């Protein structure tokens, strides 16, 4: 009973080449966008735009090229847990370095 249900749930999904082509096109557009943005003077927003575009590209690759959008809940949870742990570690480290000389500048 549950076996059958699980099998249906994890039915292997073949992603079509059309989606790969669209993703490929999107990645090229975002690459052009990020290079173009680096030539525009935006002050503090230059690095923010660059990292934002990089994050969008990474999410597209993870969802479609790496099939996470079509994967089992276990895979999705694994990926999210990994990103969460990484973001936690990096923000705690940066918070430490930012606040270490707090009030002494």
């Amino acid at each position, binding site marked *: 009973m549950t*076996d059958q249900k699980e099998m249906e749930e994890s039915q292997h999904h073949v992603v079509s080449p059309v989606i*790969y082509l669209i993703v490929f096109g999107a990645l090229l557009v975002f690459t052009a966008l990020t290079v173009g943005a680096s030539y525009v003077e935006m*002050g503090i927003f230059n690095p923010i735009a*660059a990292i934002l575009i*990089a994050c969008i590209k990474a999410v597209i690759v*993870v969802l479609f*090229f790496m099939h996470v959008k079509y994967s089992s809940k276990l895979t999705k949870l694994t990926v999210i*847990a990994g990103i969460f742990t990484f973001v936690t570690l990096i923000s705690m480290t940066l918070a430490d370095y930012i606040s270490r000389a707090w009030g002494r500048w």
Partner: protein
Amino acid sequence: MSDSTAIAHSPHDAPEHGHEEHPAYLRHHFENVEQQADAAGFAMWLFLLTEVMFFGGLFTAYLIYRNWYYPAFVAASHQLDIFWGTLNTLLLISSSFTMAMGVWCAETRKKQGLVLCLVLTFILGIGFLGIKTIEYKEKIEKHHVPGFHYSLNSFLNPDTDEAAVKAGDKPLPLDMARHTEVYFSLYFAMTGMHALHMIIGIAILGFMIFRAQAGAYTAGHVTFVENFGLYWHFVDIVWIFLFPLLYLISRHANT
């Protein structure tokens, strides 16, 4: 000798075990093919998470040092050529696309298509490393490799350096100029580790091309191609972050 081997293996070949028809590639400790594929995919993702943490440490070091020695990092990053960086990004994204198409070919059992995709991925990967070699060669010639022969000339006398003139760099004070070496240490550590991952990937691709020609991945068992695809896309994602951080974000920082 051969007799004892035959006896040791005999329980597996015994008829009572083959109560159900199953493909030869299904290992006996799995219930079915789906479970086996899920387990392999899960394990691959766990490995990739350790890789995320590994590169994450390098990225964190880069962010902290960039904040500490900001003028040095800005001047040093002007030494990188955006043209080569962009071309390499395009090569790597294309190779990710051909790899994704390779996985599709394996899933739909197209042997010729799979071999073609793997060969294209292989060539694009080699192309990436070739361009990286051109960039490294320039760094060696300008003595921008950290170590005994490191030269501060480009940062103390920017008007003698073509790339520095183009970016409009002003001379850095000596103590700040010295910290450009930190930038290049991180540059070589990060792009070097990324290139090592590319070299390992290309070696596995070479092996896979031969196996694919023998029809190994187009008979229903695609786990190896799929998991290698995950690895290759991960290496692509690392570059997606390296490219803006090393090449792009400091373009305007001193005008």
